């Protein structure tokens, strides 16, 4: 099949546009901003994507089932080899297609927006959720009843233990207490004090593999190395090494045939093609697919195709989330330059190829369980990062850096996510181009600051040249490119709960049970230091349990879902003859949680210090009574709280406590080591978990009412900051970022009027440069006014392609659940005065 069958696109007169809320294709409005240079081809691809359904694709599950349960082919093979055989076989038999007009070949599944299934890590307990997929209101997927029946029969017969099941099978009573809401009576429902969703679906992604080497030498050369290394492992009798290297070679062999299938498909399509121009394109694509990724890429187009092929390999091998392209401008520029010099292509043609590559990324997808509130709107985050220092400390900006920003303007989707690395050597025009993209309001790019991040990585044991070569992964995380095993982020820890356990001596008001350790009745505390010490002990207890669970999951992951294909391009897996899940990588950082509710916790501690211990205007008993009453009848106390200093105002009274809180979190996490002896990267990136975390936290001393959202990322509480965006940035820059190597999200929202025109662009550019000078970790913008968002809630069709930045990712506003839409509307908006 060469084209997407249009009868498959529109069903029941509905169009699923990132959401089931948008209906009627002919009534949607798409917007093209003035800064777009997209060619008609790119506009057509946009429309094609926007009108395609999401589809659940069971072909991968079928191959898995047939090979491992209906044949003897993998009998007696170790799990890693059996998995590799499934991967190779799946690539052999899965449906492939090429979108009309695309210049880049390949997809994750059988049709546009299809997501494969992963029976090896997600067992039959998700079946209930799969049954809901065609009908659920948010994040719906197509799948027929027949296929659902077939899927259920396969999953039942295989009866695979999921990571979730294995991880939760032998929880200690202590662990149970924190992971589960009511452990004595209900073994399933999570407490929302912890979540661990990312790590229990698969290897967890969050990795920046070594595309550069594949582009430079090709998978053939890597296979030759693996074969050579295999002989050595055999000579040494290293069975684990033998298993891994055999698996790696099987996956490369499989991928070689897979790429050739695309080459052949291009040729077949060319034979049938009537338009001579398109026929030439298809023949050229056939040639490229016969070349990469097995042999070195010779042109920019080949490099783009190579990257995309590897992306498919990663996604089809295991359920990975948030794997990044990394420093694309650094590793493709030599080929781009050569193309231009040799007259192979014009800059405009190269831009179109890049835009075609960009148009593949919105396909990344996965199925959320639960109520889609931790990460609503498909927060699969695939990052390109632009600019920044080279490993030897020079500025890396080049023509491709600008093309990436332009590509984001041209395609305007949540994916890929584009980030900017800034440092004192960043040239003014790159800042300006980034500001131009930022004011479009798509949430891209996010901004990372080398001067803050590089020292943090070095402090965590990364070599300076590797630290300078970092890329963004996931939302606000970073990782040195090419050498890291990946998967730093396991899920979320409710920071609001840590605070509650201090206030209630380990008791949990929402669950009406003793959940955590006793740290003393706060009414007996005589100094604020005692409050902070109790907070430290609660954080310690929670991290002890959380980290124990993630280390256990690391062990489960290496057994259940090794990734030999991906390991072929993660340094030093081949040399060490170990999978990346089994200690093969050069860097082996562990997985940990992201804490949720930072601003709520800080403002609460500030209010306690100020009112109870400094001013002594309120007793701890009065405060606790007011919290129990959810502040009803305690308006005087609320008035006092409103006048307390607040984090996000560049106010040292509050910011000192904010820094202390970050230091406690970093230090307590650093007491632990991962399965392979690695350190952890703690951080504050909440995705959209702040909404559901708030649902289990009673009233807090910052004046927040019970069960309402806690704050997100390291952003201040909504509407408390009074000093505008500069105060927010300066406060956030004071945190202990050296300890918070997992990264922290700062959201800022500007009104479109503020950044309009040349003057607005000047201001935004200068503001971004100011963020670099202030030394932030990360920041990102929403540029949309409240009226537009309210109107979009009522008229989703008018705003079909309205993107918003939720947390570290952008997504369609109309596809979000209402509670999250409201949370975004509620964020403070900055206007110029």
């Amino acid at each position, binding site marked *: 099949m060469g084209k997407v069958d249009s009868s498959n696109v529109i069903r029941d007169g509905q169009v699923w546009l990132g959401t089931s809320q948008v209906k009627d294709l002919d009534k949607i409005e798409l917007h093209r901003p003035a800064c777009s240079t997209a060619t008609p081809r790119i506009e057509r691809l946009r429309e094609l994507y926007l009108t395609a359904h999401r589809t659940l694709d069971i072909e991968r599950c079928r191959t898995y089932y047939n090979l491992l349960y209906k044949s003897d082919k993998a009998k007696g093979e170790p799990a890693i080899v059996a998995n590799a055989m499934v991967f190779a076989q799946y690539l052999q038999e899965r449906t492939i297609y090429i979108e009309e007009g695309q210049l880049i070949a390949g997809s994750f599944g059988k049709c546009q927006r299809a997501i494969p299934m992963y029976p090896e890590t997600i067992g039959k307990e998700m079946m209930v959720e799969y049954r809901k997929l065609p009908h659920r209101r948010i994040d719906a997927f197509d799948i027929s009843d027949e296929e659902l029946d077939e899927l259920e029969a396969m999953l039942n017969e295989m009866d695979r233990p999921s990571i979730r099941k294995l991880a939760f099978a032998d929880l200690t009573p202590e662990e149970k207490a924190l992971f589960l809401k009511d452990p004595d009576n209900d073994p399933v429902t999570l407490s929302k004090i912890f979540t661990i969703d990312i790590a229990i679906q698969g290897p967890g992604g969050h990795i920046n593999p070594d595309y550069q080497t594949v582009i430079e030498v090709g998978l053939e050369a890597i296979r030759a190395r693996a074969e050579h290394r295999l002989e050595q492992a055999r000579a040494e009798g290293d069975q684990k090494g033998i298993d891994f290297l055999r698996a790696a070679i099987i996956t490369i062999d499989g991928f070689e045939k897979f790429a050739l299938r695309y080459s052949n498909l291009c040729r077949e399509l060319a034979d049938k093609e009537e338009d001579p121009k398109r026929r030439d394109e298809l023949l050229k694509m056939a040639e490229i697919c016969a070349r990469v990724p097995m042999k070195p890429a010779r042109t920019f187009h080949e490099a783009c195709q190579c990257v995309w092929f590897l992306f498919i390999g990663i996604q089809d091998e295991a359920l990975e989330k948030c794997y990044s392209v990394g420093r694309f401008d650094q590793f493709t520029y030599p080929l781009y330059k050569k193309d231009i010099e040799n007259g192979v292509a014009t800059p405009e043609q190269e831009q179109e190829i890049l835009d075609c590559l960009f148009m593949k990324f919105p396909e990344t997808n996965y199925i959320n369980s639960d109520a889609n509130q931790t990460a609503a709107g498909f927060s699969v985050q695939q990052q390109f990062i632009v600019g920044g220092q080279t490993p030897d400390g020079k500025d890396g900006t080049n023509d491709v850096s600008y093309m990436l920003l332009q590509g984001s303007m041209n395609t305007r989707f949540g994916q890929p996510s584009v980030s900017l690395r800034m440092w004192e050597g960043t040239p003014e025009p790159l800042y300006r181009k980034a500001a131009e993209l930022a004011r479009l309001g798509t949430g891209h790019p996010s901004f990372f600051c080398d001067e803050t991040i590089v020292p943090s990585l070095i402090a965590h044991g990364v070599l300076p040249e590797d630290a300078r070569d970092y890329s963004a992964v996931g939302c606000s995380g970073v990782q040195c490119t090419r050498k890291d095993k990946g998967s730093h982020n396991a899920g979320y820890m409710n920071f609001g709960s840590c605070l509650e356990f201090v206030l209630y001596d380990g008791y949990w008001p929402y669950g009406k049970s003793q959940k955590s350790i006793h740290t003393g009745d706060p009414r007996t505390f005589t100094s604020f230091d005692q409050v902070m010490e109790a907070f430290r002990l609660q954080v310690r207890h929670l991290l002890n349990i959380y980290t124990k669970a993630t280390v256990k999951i690391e062990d489960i992951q290496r057994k259940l879902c090794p990734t030999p294909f991906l390991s072929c391009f993660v340094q030093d897996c081949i040399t060490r003859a170990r999978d990346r899940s089994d200690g093969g990588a050069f860097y082996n950082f562990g997985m940990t949680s992201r804490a949720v509710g930072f601003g709520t916790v800080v403002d609460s501690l500030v209010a306690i210090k100020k009112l109870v211990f400094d001013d002594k205007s309120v007793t701890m008993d009065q405060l606790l009574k007011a919290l129990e009453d959810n*502040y009803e009848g305690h*308006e*005087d*106390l*609320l*008035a006092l709280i*409103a*006048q307390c200093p607040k984090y996000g105002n*560049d106010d040292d009274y509050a910011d000192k406590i904010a820094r202390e809180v970050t230091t406690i979190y970093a230090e307590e996490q650093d007491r632990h080591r991962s399965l392979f002896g690695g350190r952890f990267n703690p951080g504050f990136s909440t995705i959209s978990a702040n909404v559901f975390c708030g649902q289990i936290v009673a009233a807090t001393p910052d004046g927040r009412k019970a069960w309402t959202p806690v704050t997100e990322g390291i952003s201040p509480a909504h509407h408390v900051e009074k*000093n*505008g*965006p*500069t*105060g927010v940035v*300066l406060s956030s820059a004071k945190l202990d970022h050296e300890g918070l190597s997992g990264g922290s999200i700062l959201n800022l929202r500007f009104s479109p009027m503020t950044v309009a025109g040349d*003057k607005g662009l*000047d*201001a935004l550019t*200068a*503001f*971004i*440069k*100011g*963020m*670099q*000078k*202030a*030394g932030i970790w990360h920041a990102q913008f929403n540029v949309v006014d409240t009226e537009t968002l309210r109107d979009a809630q009522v008229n989703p069709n008018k705003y079909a392609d309205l993107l918003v930045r939720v947390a570290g990712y952008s997504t369609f506003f109309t596809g979000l659940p209402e509670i999250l839409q409201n949370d975004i509307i509620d964020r403070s908006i*900055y206007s*110029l*005065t």
Partner: protein
Amino acid sequence: MKKALIFDIQHFSIHDGPGIRTLIFFKGCSLSCKWCANPEGISPLPDIKQTALRCIGCGACLKNCQTGAISVEEGRITIDRNRCIRCGTCARHCPAQALSVWGKYYSVEELVELAQRDMPFYEASGGGVTLGGGEPLLQNEQAVELLHRCKEAGLNTAIETAGNYPWEYLQRAAPYCDTIHFDMKGWRPEVCRAWLGRDNEQMKDNLRRLDGEISGWEKKPQLIVRIPLLPNENFTVEDFELLGDFLCTLQSLSKVEILPFHNLGQGKYEQLGRSYELKGRVNLKAEDAEPYLHVLQAKRLPVTISAM
């Protein structure tokens, strides 16, 4: 030195001098322009700001008001502004921030410290601190000292003034300013009396003297004349001819900016319990001011329109 009464400090301002600036609003003004967009800056005393939408009806203000100025009418809190002594007790007891105070006393040291906070953004943009109001130079001692100290700290400084005060007020401030925004709010004396509450003799005179004073300086401040405009009301096109001739006599003029009328200050009148005389008027666009622009352009003045 007495503390300065400030009614707002706005960070990230870009319309009040070069780059990203911190704007310090001095309370108190000797004019009462009908279009004033900062009416909370007119009185030299603190003002109570009432944001009715935020009121949760708890009655804490009612209970705590010392003069009985607060009452409830049809379920809405009403402040009798004549009885109110502006002590701010009600605001301190309001849990919803429906009542707050415009006007807080700061020492010059505190203001210098606040002005320096956004240094990374000034460095990135060539910005700095701007004194606005109200009329900043009326609290003359504090304003001059603040400008002086900011200059010493290496900050770029600007003021926004209307020139309605004794000449010495401006003479003292000018050496510490990198930019002076000087408003010309009308031309004919009777029109000025009607729209500003004063004639403009002193303002014109101060502008002329400022020009003369700075013309010989080696490092002189940038002088920008700003003209708020309601066509055919505070100025006619004929007035603009005369104004233009006057401006042509200035030797140190860097720029002229026409500011077409906007109604963005309207909400603040309600929050002050005052009526807004220009209610119902729409924001003007740049093209509404174009005939006026052409008058000054014909005189080869460096003029632009700054519409909202």
